Each structure stands twice: as C-alpha cells, then as structure tokens.
C-alpha cells in the first residue's frame, strides 16, 4: 500500500476522524462565541480581555487554533489532491501540488503561532 506523505494522518481513516473531531470542537466554539457576542452587544475592553485571558478561554482558544489548523489542512489537502492533478497540470502536477500544499502548511503554521502568541503572550 502506498501512503500519502502529505496527508495529516498518513491514512484516510485517521484524516476522516481528525476532520470530524476538529469539526465538533470548532462548531461548539463558533456557536458559543457567537452566542456570547450576541448576548453582549455593549461589550467593553475590560470584560472582553478578562474573558479571553481566563484559563478556560485560553484552553478553548488553543483547542480552537489546533482544530482549525488540522481541519484546514485535511480540507485543503483534499481540494489540492482533487484539482491539482495531471488532468489540470500535466507532468508538472506533482510539483505544483507540492508547492501549493507547502505554502498552505506554512500559512497554517503562521496562523497557529500568531494565535498562540495572542492567547498566551498576554498582549
């Protein structure tokens, strides 16, 4: 069996599961955060920074960042392996796909680190 070196779990079933677990984390977070923001129309800086600086939200935000990074990688991996193929790019397909995938991975790492800095950096 040939495994893809670029898929997150190196295995379709792992990717399937990671995609769903991360989806549930993101869905719960997004619904909860939207509910909070809708319930707090006059949110001020003091309340907001206290909420985001609390340990439960630091953990929730960290879980969100990792979930988004993993979820996005699996999703965009599927998209790139579906559309950046020899059908669209001929012999150059593997190079094109790999370059695009590495650019995506790099961006996701930047998103992740930027987010972690904000959450834990106390900025």
């Amino acid at each position, binding site marked *: 069996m040939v495994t893809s070196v670029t898929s997150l779990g190196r295995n379709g079933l792992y990717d399937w599961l990671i995609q769903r677990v991360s989806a549930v984390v993101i869905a719960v977070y997004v619904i909860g955060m939207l509910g909070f923001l809708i319930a707090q129309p006059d949110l001020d800086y003091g309340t907001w920074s206290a909420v985001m600086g609390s340990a439960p939200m630091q953990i929730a935000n960290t879980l969100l960042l990792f979930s*988004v990074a993993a979820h*996005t990688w699996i999703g*965009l991996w599927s998209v790139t392996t579906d559309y950046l193929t020899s059908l669209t790019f001929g012999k150059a397909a593997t190079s094109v796909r790999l370059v695009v995938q590495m650019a995506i991975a790099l961006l996701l790492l930047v*998103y992740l680190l*930027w987010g972690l800095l904000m959450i834990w950096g106390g900025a």
Partner: protein
Amino acid sequence: MNDKRPVNLDLTTIKFPVTAIASITHRMTGVAIFVAIPVLLWMLDRSLASPESFADLKQLMTSPLAKLVLWAILAVILYHLVAGIRHLIMDMGVGETLEGGRRGAFATFIVTAVLILLAGAWVW
C-alpha cells in the same frame, strides 16, 4: 491504473444536482474561510492589544464596508457550519439515501439562508 480511460471532468458540460451544488459550496466556503482567517486573527489582535485598539476596531466596525466584509465572512462560516453538521448527521446514517441526500442538501441551503439573513440583521 490504466491511464487511457475516458475522463469527463469538463465542469461546463456536467449538470449539477442540488447535492453536488451543496458539496462544492461546502468546499468553496472552506477555502474562503482559510482566506478569511487572517482577517479574524487581526480583529482578535486589535480587540485584545489595548483599550485604544479595541475602541479603534469598534469604530472601524461601524463603517458599511467593514460590516459587509464581516457579514460575508459570517455567511461563509455559517454555510460551512450547517453543511458540516449535515455531514455529521449523515455519518450517523441519517439521510444517506438519494432522496435523503437531496432533502438534506436543500435543507442546508434553506437553514443557511435564514441564518445569513439573521447575521446580516445582527451586523447592521
């Protein structure tokens, strides 16, 4: 694999059923969210950096263009969220038939349309 098989992936000649439109929209909104993430991270950064930057962001969000951008981001997130929940429901074995798939795809569009309108009302 035999590379000589006939392949028809000319999207302009393929008729898309509602399930296919729901699926491709899920993908497109996913890619759109990837592009929107830096905007959201930037907003988070401004909201937390200082009371002044928080006030600046709040001021910026009163502009119609900023509201439009936020609404567009909320819209793609809402579609992706609803379509994702439909996926999880289908993973549990519900709505997996051809007819169930059609109804689920249709319901995804209806529910998302309502949520996007509500999000628009919230942003404005």
